[in-house]
């Protein structure tokens, strides 16, 4: 028997286990998936917890339930990948030898990377929404907030779900408007980037939206340290706050540092088209784990898992890895007031206006705020658990980005 080992049973690892268990000859191949947490988190749901729309319980399920029959599920932590010997040492002393390794350990927040962030008010007047606990803690803080300055903040790029900080800003505006105390709440959006978003056309739309919502945009803010109630930048700028909702530095799993397989942020250098790790032919990586210039988002993982399955089958047969990931990403941007935006883009084409997934019919509108987009966003929780995670194809949603239905201006950025 040969062995495929998947490290990480989040969105990426689980989807790979599902695809491979269907496609591989099970008389020849055994699949093992490893996770250090028995829970599986519906991470897009974190956004809704602070605002009282979801609870923590709504976004957590037991991970084992989503691992297909016949796949070995091990609750254990990997200590080191010894790539040259094709084996993984576990923290409990066991070892697993593999023929093919898939790394799907994701990314995590590291508030300790910013001077003063942990010491000067973490979970007191500083919160994150990138963990179920952080979002839950904020849900207990927000109802008591009677007015003052709120800063929505990003320390450094890249981050998981790059639109999430914008969503937090829009939702915060909506939340306090609903409570009738919006006039007593000042909201700053503080980013290290030159605009509200990384892609210029979208940055313009979002910048306009922030302005319309009375949210002050602070750009090019390189955070040096956090003092109590104050952000300080490297060039001596400051932003005062009563409540900071921050996106701390994101980093890949420390396993990569221990194994010599990561870059400066512990992301795995990976071929951006084939998803093969640069370090060794029999190692592959997908999702938030990689150093790819694509979004760290569930939709990306969904598209990559189809490409990677094809390439692993080719690899097993000794064939060229022909399936090529194009950077396809799509994401809803919840903007409050029962509306949302939708973006669809890839390595080459920035988000543009149009309809998705079908030309003219949509039903979703790209780069425009609609109620239907919001319904799409809210349906994602069901779709995630019952369709996406189970590897059931979604009609009209392809791993390659389509150009039909998009209004592509001649000046659209082709990178």
């Amino acid at each position, binding site marked *: 028997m040969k062995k495929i080992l998947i490290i990480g049973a989040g969105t990426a690892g689980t989807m790979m286990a599902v695809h491979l268990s269907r496609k591989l000859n099970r008389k020849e191949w055994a699949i093992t998936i490893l996770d250090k947490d028995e829970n599986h988190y519906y991470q897009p749901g974190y956004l809704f917890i602070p605002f009282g729309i979801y609870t923590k319980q709504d976004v957590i399920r037991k991970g084992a339930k989503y691992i297909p029959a016949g796949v070995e599920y091990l609750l254990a932590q990997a200590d080191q990948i010894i790539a040259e010997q094709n084996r993984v040492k576990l923290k409990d002393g066991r070892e697993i030898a593999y023929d093919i390794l898939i790394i799907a350990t994701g990314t995590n927040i590291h508030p300790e990377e910013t001077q003063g962030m942990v010491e000067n008010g973490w979970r007191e007047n500083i919160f994150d929404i990138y963990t179920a606990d952080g979002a839950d803690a904020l849900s207990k803080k927000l109802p008591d907030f009677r007015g003052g300055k709120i800063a929505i903040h990003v320390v*450094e*790029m*890249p981050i998981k779900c*790059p639109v999430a900080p914008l969503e937090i800003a829009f939702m915060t505006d909506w939340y306090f408007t609903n409570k009738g105390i919006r006039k007593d709440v000042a909201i700053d959006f503080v980013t290290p*980037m*030159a605009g509200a978003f*990384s*892609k210029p056309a979208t940055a313009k739309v979002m910048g306009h939206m922030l302005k319309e919502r009375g949210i002050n945009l602070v750009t*090019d803010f*390189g955070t*040096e340290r956090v003092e109590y109630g104050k952000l300080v930048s*490297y*060039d001596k700028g400051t932003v005062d706050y009563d409540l900071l909702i921050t996106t701390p530095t994101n980093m890949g799993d420390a396993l990569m540092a221990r194994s010599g397989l990561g*870059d*400066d*942020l512990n992301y795995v250098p990976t071929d951006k088209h084939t998803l093969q790790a640069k370090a060794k032919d029999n190692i592959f990586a997908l999702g938030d784990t990689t150093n790819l*210039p*694509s*979004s760290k988002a569930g939709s990306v993982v969904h598209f990559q898992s189809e490409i990677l399955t094809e390439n692993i089958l080719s690899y097993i047969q000794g064939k060229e890895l022909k399936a090529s990931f194009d950077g396809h*990403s799509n994401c809803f941007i919840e903007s409050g007031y029962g509306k949302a935006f939708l973006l669809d883009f890839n390595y080459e084409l920035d988000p543009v206006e149009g309809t998705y997934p079908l030309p003219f019919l949509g039903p979703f509108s790209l780069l425009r705020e609609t109620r239907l987009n919001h319904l799409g966003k809210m349906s994602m929780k069901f779709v995630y658990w019952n369709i996406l995670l189970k590897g059931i194809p979604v009609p009209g949603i392809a791993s390659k980005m389509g150009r039909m239905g998009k209004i592509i201006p001649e000046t659209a950025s082709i*990178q």
Partner: protein
Amino acid sequence: MATKEIAGKTVNVTEEGYLTDPAQWTREVAQAIAAEEGITLTDAHWKVIDFLKKDFAEAGVLASMRRINKTGGIATKDLYDLFPDGPLKKAARIAGLPKPTSCV
């Protein structure tokens, strides 16, 4: 694609003034671009530029500020002092490297 006269040479540049042909970069060109940015290059500046060029040649992508700090050994604070208002953008332009792409 535009061309530009700088330090007695004709070089190819993007709209934003980033060199497109690394072979056209010289230390004199770097000094001239720095002057446009209001910067007089010192040894400390050259340490950053040399690191960026060496790292770019090896990695094929422009180093991040974190990488300049962790691998290049140059504190981010110093980087802001040396190249005020957008250190990476300015240092990359002076080093004849591509404009930093913002991450998605």
